[in-house]
């Protein structure tokens, strides 16, 4: 198999793992904290805590994870055959 495909497969899996983390974080805080009675909500920067953690902090964390994954786990490969390892 083309060596570049190994890298590509690994990176596709990283994408899947990131979505799973994203979903769990989003769901966990969104419905975990958000299911309480509205009168018992706590607030962060004026926003309900469930919303702050799930949507604001969650987005920031995902962006940081995406940056880290791309910087440290993704590899540069050539796309044209003549430059790369031909099978």
């Amino acid at each position, binding site marked *: 198999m083309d060596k570049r495909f190994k890298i*590509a497969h690994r990176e*596709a899996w990283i994408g899947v793992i990131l979505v799973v983390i994203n979903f769990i974080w989003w769901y966990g805080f969104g419905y975990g904290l958000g299911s309480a009675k509205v009168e018992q909500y706590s607030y962060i920067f*004026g926003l309900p805590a469930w*919303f702050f953690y799930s949507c604001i902090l*969650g987005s920031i964390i995902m*962006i940081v994870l995406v*940056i880290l994954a791309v910087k440290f786990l993704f590899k*540069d490969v050539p796309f044209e055959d003549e430059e790369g390892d031909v099978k």
Partner: protein
Amino acid sequence: MNWAVITPLLIFLFIIFAVGFWSNKFVLKSNSFLEEYFLGERQMGGFILAMTMVATYGSASSFIGGPGVAYTKGLGWVLLAMAQLATGYFVLMVLGKKFAIVARQYKAITLIDFLKERYKSKAVVLISAASIIIFLFSSMTAQWIGGARLVESLTGLPYTYALLIFVGSVLIFVIVGGFRAVALTDAVQGVVMFMGTLILLVATIKAGGGIPKIISDLAAENPNLISPFGADRELTPAYVSSFWILVGVGVVGLPQITVRAMSYKNSKAMHSAIIIGTIVVGFIMLGMHLIGVFARPVIPGVKIGDTVMPMLTMKVLPPFVAGIVLAAPMAAIMSTVDALLILVSSAIVKDIYLNYIKPHASEGQIKKMSFSVTAIIGILVIFFALTPPDLIVWLNLFSFGGLESVFIWPVILGLYWRKGNKYGAITSMVLGMGSYILLDRLYPNAFGLHTVVVPVVLSLISFVVVSFATQQGTKAHSSF
């Protein structure tokens, strides 16, 4: 007419035109007309790639429809909208390098070229081309109607003139500039969308008296507005979560997005596009939907959701700045229709005309054909948008989820599963589309999930089962 609002819009249109004509230079001097006109010679850098993906994806619904719904349903709808953050990184990571490399090996210019080489089946090509032409044509018409209504409401021009101005301006730069013009104008439009969101968000928070004040006003009106369950507690976790398929991971199957994943220069471009794309899409989706919710205490009692965003803008911003912000939804609509237009044109010229009607057409014929097909589609859409036939309105309802159900597995399993074959692909495409339309009519939101979920699962199962059942006689695909 309100010239203070219209002037920034005119400046915006002028910039878009300039970019279109500048791209025409590349079309004229390119040695490979088809690859240039329909794919920009695979020269997109990271920033342009990120912006063209975000802008193509972000449409009228992100700037007009979505905030309107958020206005009625509250923070629960913002939670739902945030499923779209995943599109920023997921599409490029999953299609990723494999798709870029394989598409080059196949010399594929369109998504259908890829499917044709991968499955070697005329049926796959024809079903794909038909679904792209029918469904994207309808959704283009719907977006165009939306764009014209917006121009109508901003300028006070009658609908027909508004439509002609809007469509005319998009047509000109797409016809002369091709994919490169589409991608470059998308970059400008993406920036306008980003800035518009930022300005309007800040202005709305100020007008509402700060976030804590807005939230307590909302809670005083109806506590459910600040819960994740929607104003009438109608948004169940299962329903909201199923949008991760419709507007999150399923976006991998949208041809207008997929084709962008073959257009970039090198892996560096892809890496920076993933980062920029995630930040921009996250910010725009969070910002615009949050604006919709925050608008509620600022302009209470709006009945028609689609009018929330324009009304709010006029209320909280001085006219000239309002013009800049209102260029954002215009940009969102234009950048979606231009991508659809060039894609439908490529399906007709490249996938049907060159494959089956005239395989040995000369360079000159191809050029003439490409320009005129693009123009004819555009003009047809104008007629449909003037008096939208019910069929178009009806088809547009299916275009997003329907295309996902058709393409997601033939693309993904085609890339990553050696044993997938044409019989699996054909079954999954037919079943995906068929079951989507049927379920939508007869049994929408089955099991409390969005209608898209069941067809996507069905098409996966049928793809795998049929591929296994027909292993004999078809060789596993060689390029893996």
